């Protein structure tokens, strides 16, 4: 039975996980896998089955945040070792693809802004649905999305 849930929600949250992890499909797969196993282990703590989706999303979201934190640590070490290059400068070579430039620009967002922007614009969900998934008020959520757009508009101007 759990297989059915994994299949349904892997399809539903796959885009979110991939976008949260810079489009890295393998990292997204790892995050989802870990999230589903954790959810299985703590199914008893899902007190309201009607809110299973929101409960599971929170586990997936936490797992994506954890992977981002781990990667940030690795990236900063690598950058220090290489006297690193700002990721944004790669845009000069990749002007042709505005989608890829947006992906780089999204690195300038806070994790909360990125999450809100992805759920709103990449996934096309309504503010009401996202507010429930993230357990935040709609006004606070809109503010995250607005700030994300402001930042992305500015970055796109710089990069394109």
């Amino acid at each position, binding site marked *: 039975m*759990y297989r059915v849930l994994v299949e349904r929600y892997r399809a539903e949250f796959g885009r979110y*996980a*991939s976008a949260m992890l810079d489009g890295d499909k393998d990292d997204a797969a790892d995050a989802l896998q870990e999230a589903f196993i954790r959810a299985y282990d703590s199914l008893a703590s899902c007190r309201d089955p009607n809110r299973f989706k929101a409960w599971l999303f929170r586990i997936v979201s936490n797992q994506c945040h954890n992977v981002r934190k781990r990667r940030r640590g690795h990236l900063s070490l690598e950058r220090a070792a290489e006297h690193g290059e700002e990721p944004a400068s790669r845009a000069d070579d990749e002007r042709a693809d*505005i*989608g890829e430039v947006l*992906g780089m620009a999204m690195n300038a967002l806070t994790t909360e802004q990125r999450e809100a922007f992805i759920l709103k614009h990449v996934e096309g969900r309504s*503010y009401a649905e996202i507010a429930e998934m993230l357990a935040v008020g709609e006004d606070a959520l809109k503010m995250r999305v*607005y700030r994300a757009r402001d930042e992305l*508009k500015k970055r796109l101007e710089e990069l394109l």
Partner: protein
Amino acid sequence: MTNDSDKLSAEVQRYLDGEGPADGIDSSACAEADRLLEATARYSERLETPGSEVDRAVMAAIGARATEERESLWGWLVNPHVFRVRPALAAAAMVVLVVAGVLGGSLRERAPAATESAALPSTILVRFELVAPTADRVSLAGSFNDWLPDGVQLTKNPDTGVWTGTVPLRPGEHQYMFVIDGAEWIPDPDAHAQVDDGFGQTNSVIVVGPRGVIRS
């Protein structure tokens, strides 16, 4: 940080939310907003998402854990254990064991009745049907096949659009759903009972007796 001059106006934000018209918005601001939307659309097209390898890995991990737990229980059962019991409790335990032995003997005398049911078939062939003329593929997933979405493929009658398949089921209650084109899970519209699976979805129910389907 974003300065005030970098911020999108309230009208543009409403436009990006799909709640306001483009009319009346400064043309350069409108172009910026459209560029952001185009970039998002292109970004979304490029996104690769994890596939069914995640499902297999999760189920394998959970299955492996269940095996470990079984082995650990088996190990506990077969390995010697030392129990310390106070003499008074030991005497009480002896009484319980003697009573259990007497009851066990009387239960064993009834055992032949159970062998009669062994003559009945262990599985019953059950035919499932779904009318789905526009589907390219229909399969059956249920509690009897670990909910594998491609476990039982149904066959289509091209004249009627009816998909059918026959499955051997053990007597008892089974839950199931049809899977259309590998993606859409639907309950059986003709099932006698539908139950909430506890996760916001509905499963169909079939009850199989030792001599055939009791309710479907």
